[in-house]
């Protein structure tokens, strides 16, 4: 019995020290990681889906409080009108959360484009959601009111073969984005004109 308690305490101490150390490292690096993600992950994706815009969406951004969460919105200017907002949401994929940026035209409520930012999907299968345009192209021009489901679930988005879970995750993220857009539309319109 005494031996059991000793084992228990040793492992408990190990885990506590490890957890504490990781918390310190995490809070120390968090800000830098966010900046790096903006630069290397969201940057290229946003530029790609907002191709042809006449401003720099990365610097032309604003934040809105959504409940207790702060969300960043990136503005795209097309033909002299600030008509497109892009923002990120997360869907549940096969290997974890998939970050998807959805760009929406605020005048027509149509999707201008979507792009995958961060993911931990299987290399060569799920990772094709990011590396190949096949999946994200299908969302272009769809109304934000669509149900967004893969064909296996009765929707009209063709899943990547071998990566249905990933494709579902991307659809899920777009559905969440549609919800966010619905909730915050008034505020977005206010900010975008300001």
């Amino acid at each position, binding site marked *: 019995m005494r*031996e059991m308690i*000793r*084992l228990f305490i*040793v*492992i408990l101490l*190990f*885990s506590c020290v*490890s957890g504490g*150390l*990781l918390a310190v*490292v*995490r809070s120390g*690096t968090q800000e*830098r*990681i966010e900046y*790096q*993600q903006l*630069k*290397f*992950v969201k940057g290229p994706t946003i530029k790609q889906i907002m191709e042809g815009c006449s401003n720099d969406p990365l610097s032309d951004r604003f934040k809105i409080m959504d409940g207790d969460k702060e969300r960043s919105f990136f503005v795209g200017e097309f033909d002299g009108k600030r008509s497109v907002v892009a923002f990120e949401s997360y869907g549940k994929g096969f*290997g974890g959360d998939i970050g998807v940026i959805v760009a929406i035209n605020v005048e027509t409520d149509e999707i201008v484009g979507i792009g995958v930012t961060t993911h*931990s999907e299987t*290399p060569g299968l799920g990772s094709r959601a990011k590396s190949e345009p096949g999946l994200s192209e299908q969302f272009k021009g769809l109304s934000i009111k669509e149900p967004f489901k893969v064909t296996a679930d009765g929707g009209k988005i063709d899943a990547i073969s071998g990566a249905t879970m990933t494709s579902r995750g991307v659809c899920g993220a777009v559905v969440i984005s549609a919800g966010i857009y619905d909730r915050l539309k008034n505020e977005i319109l206010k900010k975008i004109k300001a």
Partner: protein
Amino acid sequence: MAKTVVQEFTKGLWAEIPPFRLVLGLCPTLAVTKTVENGVGMGIATTFVLVCSNILISLLRNVIPKNVRIACFIVVIATFVIVVELVMQAFAYPLFLKLGIFIPLIVVNCIVLGRAEAFAAKNGVVSSFADGLGIGIGFTLSLTALSIFREVLGSGTFTVPITSVSIPLFGPSFQPFNFLIEAPGAFVCLGLMLCIMNMLGKK
């Protein structure tokens, strides 16, 4: 029997160089050595984890109860791996994107656990440090050699570590030997290098 610290260090560079002599940790070896930059980055990350975990486990070797030692080792190793992962995200984000899942997978790299169990748990801090550093540098050298071989022949480029600049080596008419970049090519390369090392060792 007692080896000097220098011997503990140098054995990792030739006599027990992973993954050729110590045939462990093949998964990252085969998977990431597509470009020189990835190979070197993976080697350095593994070296850091190996050295830190060896030092800590050797310091704690009398505290850790025998029957839960593996669990304790894994906690120590996993902690350092996550530290590496966070630091790499903060300071070398493009490299982190390329190595992806293979950084967290250092936790289950048999070299790290193997050195903890076979060496650090039985030896003092200084020789454990030397052992970890030697094995780590040896691993980095092997990955670099393997990735140079694969990248130069397989895609005809040389990616300079840190700068991520790919230099084409053979001009536009070069037909890359794609097989080497794929997974089976990695096995063949590894086998050939192992063969060469054994031939050199025989003499």
